[in-house]
């Protein structure tokens, strides 16, 4: 493969072609459904067709008689196998209501897709056929799919043990908020919808579980982003010793948050493998996944800006009503809260007042989907800033420039500290790239002459908090775990290096990026660095991949582990060369003694540390180091995105013409991989803005139940993006890096919808709900009135 020639010390910042590609390009990858074990059986889950129904009886007897069937279980059959509910790790307030969530429902089905029984058979087809024979007697109950309606008096109650459908109310308010709002000469109030989204990783979920009774040992292979977190929580749910449970993430085909969970099927497969004494595989079908895998967003947002007449924003007030779905999934309750600190955007705001209500509805649970709370926040503030600009008859650029945070570190009104940024730089560059002035002139001319197509220009300037997360802050926020990550470097005697990482990539290219870090620091050829991940037996320490954390936390852990390797190498080398350690200079893993030709590399030191023939007194043999890095702050990327589009007023069709993204993400290890992350993030953000929407009817049926009705954008819907960067390296970590995985999804919905609204300004249109489908745009034009 075309890895370029080895030049020590030039790896960081270099667009190295990916080491992980070869197997993925040749069919030698191993995704979950590619794995088989002797004696393996297949599981099929029987799911409720009703959004809300009492389960009066479940009869698996006919299924048990079907060909190939080796077992069939109801929720009641397995009720005693669970030592605890499927977890929610972030109960955001002391009084957050967390209902019991069993892998199979026992009393009621609470969403269409809630599992009620499971059937196991020798083949996939037999399991599926037999699942059809399970007879369930349901008593249908009224559904409620809208979170606001679920809060209303008399709404159908999902969990009888709770008084109502409210899970929690979370607030964050500065003392000055009410005063600032009552004194403000201008208050803009807006209401937005964050539609429900389906993540759509192209690989469906799946699990394979094995139990060895003689050893009392469990192994779970899962298409997951979080093998370490999964092991911890499955040990709790099943009450098995964590040390006897091994979780392996094989090659994983995308996640975007959808594989960041502790799912019913993961717990079920382990329990069923134990009961049957045979390995159990379950592979999700796509339409099944639309019901059984978490959804994203589903918020009603109200946002108010308090401002001066000159456009200076003084305060932000936010009220969110968020659909949790039927149960609290792993981070479901906390997902909207991840946006709570960035509804003030990139702006210097003195007063802040945020409230979020989490609500149960008879729908598939929601949880973290790419951006998780921050796309919603960015959308609200960026749309509201445009609304303020309209109110004051200012250019949206001018309002933004007037309000940017310019000095860092900056403690924001919401309470956290933004360590670095360059919002003016990003916006200036984006406007120059897109030729903003020229576009505005073109727009004015076209409006003047009544051009058939409506030109729209939309901005989104953003900052976001990612790189999850400082453990102490997570503790204060009642999150049940820490936010550190870990890396181990093991220098083998023959020169190659094993790197064990606690993050768990599923497309992000960690193998390449992390190899570059090691090659840079230790001077080891890139090809001799082997990055190992995704198996709790080879790397015990890790908190996995989500929240744009892998480089900003795990990568820094690796950087620091390399520092430890260099320290020990230095002692080994000094002893061997019979010089004082202070006399050694090191560059990219090569130690030299000034004024002499004496030199040794880290690889030489590894051999000496291995033979241990001549080490300093008391030194442990071997050259290996682990570093566990707990970030002192979040990671704060930022940037400016500009969308340019045209709308056909006759049809409402929106055609994206250009999309410019200038991101500020600190230092970059591999620009090609970073560009790829931005491409994918923006594509998903454009998807939210223009195409994607999970729709439930009033009876709680998911009417967008397959890829035929839920529109995942194809190549034909998207365009080439124009990317650039500015850099304000993070002072929080020694690499100066920031997260990037979610920036595109965070900025794009706001940029695109601001452009849609901008295009429709001559019609007096001020809002188009996402996704801005042709019908919706056309209606907005009709209701907005004539040009």
């Amino acid at each position, binding site marked *: 493969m075309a890895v370029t020639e080895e030049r020590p010390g030039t790896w960081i910042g270099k667009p190295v072609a990916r080491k992980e590609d070869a197997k993925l390009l040749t069919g030698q990858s191993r995704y979950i459904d590619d794995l088989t074990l002797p004696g393996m059986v297949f599981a099929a889950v029987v799911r409720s067709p009703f959004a809300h129904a009492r389960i009066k009886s479940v009869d698996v007897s006919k299924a048990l008689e079907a060909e190939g069937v080796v077992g069939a279980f109801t929720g009641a059959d397995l009720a005693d196998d669970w030592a605890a509910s499927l977890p929610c790790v972030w109960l955001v307030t002391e009084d957050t209501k967390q209902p019991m969530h069993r892998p199979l429902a026992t009393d009621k089905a609470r969403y269409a897709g809630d599992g009620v029984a499971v059937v196991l058979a020798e083949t996939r087809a037999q399991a599926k056929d037999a699942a059809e024979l399970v007879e369930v007697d349901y008593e249908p109950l009224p559904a409620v799919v809208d979170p606001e309606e679920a809060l209303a008096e008399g709404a159908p109650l999902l969990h009888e043990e709770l008084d109502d459908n409210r899970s929690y109310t979370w607030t964050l308010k500065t003392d000055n908020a009410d005063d600032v709002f009552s004194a403000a000469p201008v208050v803009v109030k807006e209401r937005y919808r964050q539609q429900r989204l389906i993540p759509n990783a192209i690989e469906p979920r799946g699990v394979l579980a094995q139990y060895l009774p003689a050893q009392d040992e469990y192994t779970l292979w899962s298409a997951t982003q979080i093998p370490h977190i999964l092991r911890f929580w499955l040990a709790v749910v099943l009450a098995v010793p964590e040390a006897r449970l091994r979780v392996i993430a094989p090659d994983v085909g995308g996640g975007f948050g959808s594989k960041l969970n502790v799912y019913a099927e993961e717990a079920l497969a382990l329990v069923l493998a134990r009961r049957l004494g045979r390995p159990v595989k379950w592979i999700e079908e796509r339409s099944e996944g639309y019901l059984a895998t978490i959804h994203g967003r589903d918020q009603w947002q109200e946002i108010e800006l308090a401002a001066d007449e000159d456009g200076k924003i003084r305060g932000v007030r936010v009220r969110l009503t968020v659909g949790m779905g039927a149960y609290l999934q792993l981070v479901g309750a906390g997902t909207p809260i991840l946006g709570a600190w960035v509804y003030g955007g990139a702006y210097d705001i003195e007063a802040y007042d945020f409230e979020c209500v989490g609500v149960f509805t008879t729908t598939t649970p929601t949880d973290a989907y790419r951006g998780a709370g921050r796309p919603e926040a960015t959308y609200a503030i960026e749309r509201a800033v445009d609304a303020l600009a309209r109110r004051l008859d200012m250019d949206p650029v001018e309002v933004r420039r007037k309000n940017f945070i310019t000095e860092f570190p900056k403690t924001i009104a919401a309470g956290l500290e933004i360590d670095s940024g360059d919002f003016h730089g990003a916006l200036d560059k984006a406007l120059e790239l897109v030729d903003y002035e020229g576009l505005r002139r073109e727009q004015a001319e076209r409006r003047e002459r009544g051009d058939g197509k409506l030109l729209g220009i939309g901005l989104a300037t953003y900052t976001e908090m990612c790189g999850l997360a400082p453990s102490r802050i997570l503790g204060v926020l009642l999150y049940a775990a820490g936010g550190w990550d870990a890396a181990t470097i093991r220098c083998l005697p023959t020169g190659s290096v094993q790197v064990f990482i606690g993050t768990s990539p599923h497309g992000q290219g960690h193998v390449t990026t992390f190899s570059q870090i090691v090659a840079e620091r230790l001077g080891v050829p890139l090809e001799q660095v082997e990055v190992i991940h995704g198996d709790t037996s080879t790397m015990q320490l890790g908190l996995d991949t989500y929240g744009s954390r892998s480089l900003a936390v795990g990568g820094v852990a690796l950087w620091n582990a390399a520092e430890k390797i260099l320290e020990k190498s230095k002692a080994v080398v000094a002893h061997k060369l019979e010089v004082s350690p202070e006399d050694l200079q090191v560059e990219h893993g090569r130690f030299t003694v000034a004024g002499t030709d004496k030199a040794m590399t880290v690889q030489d030191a590894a051999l000496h540390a291995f033979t241990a023939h001549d080490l300093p007194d008391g030194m442990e043999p071997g050259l290996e180091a682990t570093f566990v890095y707990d970030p002192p702050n979040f990671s704060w990327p930022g940037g400016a995105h500009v969308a340019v589009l045209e709308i056909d007023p006759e049809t409402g069709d929106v055609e994206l013409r250009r999309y410019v993204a200038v991101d500020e993400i600190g230092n970059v290890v591999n620009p090609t991989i970073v560009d790829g992350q931005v*491409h994918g993030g923006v594509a998903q953000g454009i998807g939210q803005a223009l195409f994607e929407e999970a729709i439930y009817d009033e009876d709680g049926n998911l009417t967008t139940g397959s890829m035929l009705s839920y529109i995942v954008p194809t190549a034909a819907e998207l365009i080439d993006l124009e990317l650039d960067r500015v850099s304000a390296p993070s002072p929080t970590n020694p690499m100066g890096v920031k997260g990037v995985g979610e920036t595109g999804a965070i900025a794009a919905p706001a940029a695109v919808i601001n452009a849609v609204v901008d295009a429709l300004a001559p019609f007096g249109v001020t809002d188009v709900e996402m996704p801005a489908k042709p019908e919706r745009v056309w209606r907005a034009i009709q209701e907005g009135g004539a040009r």
Partner: protein
Amino acid sequence: MRRIAVTVNGGRREAEVEPRDLLVYFLREGLGLTGTVVGCDTSSCGACTVLLDGESVKACTLLAVQADGREVTTIEGLASNGQLHPVQQAFHEAHGLQCGYCTPGMVLATVSLLAENPSPSDDEIRHALEGNLCRCTGYQNIVKAVKAAAA
């Protein structure tokens, strides 16, 4: 059960299959060629794309018996003598893949496209690949890879 004979990646394979068996499961489970993957149940995503007599087809919408007497190329059959096919090489160099799950289908759809249209425009590429979904790349580097492979 029915006996079929299919030339897969240049080798003749005979097997007994159920009339209802899909080609994709015949390849994956019958022949162990797991490079062809399944991404949906509605023929929407194209992850299972293979070449049938040189033309791209979705192996989840074809029965194994329909391949009887014909030639199938899967991703495993594309590289030769340890050398990546030019399309595979172009995807690597252009960073046209991230998680890799759509990649076999995307690569084979590209091979088929370039056989029909050796120098497609951006627009032609984007429309030709409409049947193959990717959620990671936003397609930008896929289009770039296809252009590079065509050049």
